[in-house]
């Protein structure tokens, strides 16, 4: 039993790492632009299908390298055309718009690629479990975790040491002051959106290898990321990170004892966190409220 529990905790961390990747992108966009991006799951699907479409030509590794920036490019275009007019308006509108956008993306992928799921093969050496006992730690899942760590490290470097990153962080705290300093806030938001979508695209490529590709796959992955942000505390990227890992572990552990609740448990957790600490585990008072 202890072993089983230990397995599930480790496994929960692996699953959580994936949610973290999604949630970080969602969180970046939410923090700076005050937009709940309902289409985030859609962008994940786009990332996955781009990888599927280009992998015959560039291989899995090429797709991994190319699909996220291509997705980010699409995201950039979407931000320019659709999201930008909504800044400064009630968050209701961006919520509805991205909600509709998610519809269009799901239907668009179905239109282009068909309703049939698509097989995505991963390099054979990654498709092996590491050992017979730790069978659930496959090369691919380890690779996914590694990719998440790399992405987080790069994001950290970007936010901490580059001019863009410092401005994003400053903008998250106080956009008006940033604007008053003569920084091009529109550009800042565009780039920030693109970074967020880049992460969604990366999640998509990784998910395609793990789950297979379907036009509807984004919807199911969106909500846990959402919860990760609330649990971690809106406005805090470390919070998002912790929230993602936490819900991964929580649903993994619940699956051992009470599988029917393994999805509901993350919502319960959110309720408890909100009761005890309304701003979330790492959230700061006043943020977004």
């Amino acid at each position, binding site marked *: 039993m202890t072993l089983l529990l230990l397995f599930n905790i480790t496994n929960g961390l692996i699953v959580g790492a*994936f949610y973290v990747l999604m949630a970080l992108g969602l969180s970046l966009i939410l923090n700076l632009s005050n937009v709940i991006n309902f289409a985030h799951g859609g962008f994940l699907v786009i990332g996955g299908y781009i990888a599927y479409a280009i992998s015959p030509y560039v291989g899995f590794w090429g797709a991994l390298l190319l699909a996220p920036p291509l997705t980010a490019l699409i995201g950039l275009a979407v931000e320019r055309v659709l999201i930008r007019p909504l800044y400064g308006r009630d968050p209701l509108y961006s919520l509805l718009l991205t909600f509709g956008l998610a519809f269009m993306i799901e239907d668009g992928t179905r239109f282009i690629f068909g*309703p049939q*799921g698509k097989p*995505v093969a991963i390099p054979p050496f990654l*498709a092996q479990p590491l050992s017979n006992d730790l069978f659930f730690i*496959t090369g*691919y899942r380890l690779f996914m975790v590694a990719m998440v760590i790399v992405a987080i490290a790069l994001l950290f470097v970007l936010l901490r040491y580059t001019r863009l990153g410092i401005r994003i962080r400053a903008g998250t705290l106080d956009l008006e002051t940033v604007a008053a300093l003569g920084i091009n806030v529109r550009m800042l938001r565009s780039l920030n959106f693109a970074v967020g979508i880049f992460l969604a695209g990366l999640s998509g490529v990784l998910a395609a290898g*793990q789950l297979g590709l379907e036009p509807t796959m984004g919807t199911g992955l969106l909500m846990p990321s959402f919860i990760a942000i609330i649990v971690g505390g809106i406005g805090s990227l470390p919070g998002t990170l912790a929230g993602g890992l936490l819900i991964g572990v929580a649903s*993994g552990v619940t699956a051992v004892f009470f599988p029917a609740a393994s999805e509901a448990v993350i919502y319960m957790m959110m309720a408890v966190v909100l009761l005890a600490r309304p701003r979330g585990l790492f959230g700061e008072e006043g943020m977004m409220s």
Partner: protein
Amino acid sequence: MPISRRSWSVDRRTILKSGALIAAAQITSPFVIRARGETPIRIGMVDPLTGVYAAIAQNEVVGAKYAAEEINKKGGILGRPIELLVEDSANDVGTGVQKTRKLIDRDQVSFIIGDVNSGIAIAMAQVTSEKKVLHVVSGGHTDPITGTSCSWNVFRVCNSTAMDANAIATTLIEKFGKKWYFLTPDYAYGHSVQASFEKILKSAGGTSAASLVPLGTPDYSAYLIQAKAYSPQVLINVMGGGDQVASLKQFVQFGLDKQMAVGGTLFELESIRAVPDGARVGWWTMEWWWDQPGVPHVAEFNAAMKKITGSAATARNWFGYASVQTLAVIANQEKTLDAPKLAHALAGFKLPPEIALQPGAPEYRAGDHELMSTVFVGEAHPPQGDADNMFTVKSPVPGDKAAGPVEESGCKMQWPA
């Protein structure tokens, strides 16, 4: 693939006659089977063309449309052409019920076909029996449809979950052993398949454990860890659609395929196509298979489907086809559209070979209105030769044998006075 209908407008009759608008409709609705002279007989079809079952639902529609074309070529029903009206239930019960009412109340359809989603199919059956419209369930599998919830006007083409489970259970026991682990989706379909399996396993003296998995779960590792801890001889994978794809993929990635056998009831061709070669494994049932050497008409049907979809015919294609053909052939035989009369005639009706497309002549069993269709038990594998040759039939089980006695279905058929 747009599935289309004529538009909704002020006065439909005049518009239908208006040449210009018909020309416009040609562009937007290439699949409409339109009236020629006679008022057409309408068949309404409700299926989840969007959402998680979109792939299989759209394949049913392809089969149904093909059937409608064939029937119209041969003179339609009672000398009138037929028109197939397809509505999307969006995998939502409320929408499915609404569309059923719309087809019956507004479009005055004579027959209803659908739905892939069992829950919607049963909800639709409530409406069709209330309105006394003959209803063929093309692709919803749960037992109650022809069991506890059966109705005089409802007939089912696809198998019940019990039939599929019964057909393959003994094979699995004999081949691999009696210690099983279930990966079961947590809704009625899953529960019903698991219950059928457990009944047989228990009577054979086997043991089992199960994980009930929420629908739409992306990651199966937690359940597979438990499965492995139980160390079963067979992992019964009852998941459907994308869930089955994801769970099988992870099953193989974890190397579990080297430690236990995998199998279950359905691993439809649509799903086999959606997984990479490595995950094309296990023992399953097919409810219809395109490669049946020596069985008449199958090759022609397969070729026709291939011309439309570009790949081999699937069981879903046949469900749609058989549903429409059933309605046409019984109406032509009885020379009426009266639902109770047709229902009486269909009870015990044997499908002719050009519709059955399988060995023998399956009948709609009078006791529960379930089609006694052959269950093809076999093994999945990566493509051999033909790209769609990913399943080898090992033993076709006759439907009535798989179904068991009608008393066990729980159906108490009541006919209107």
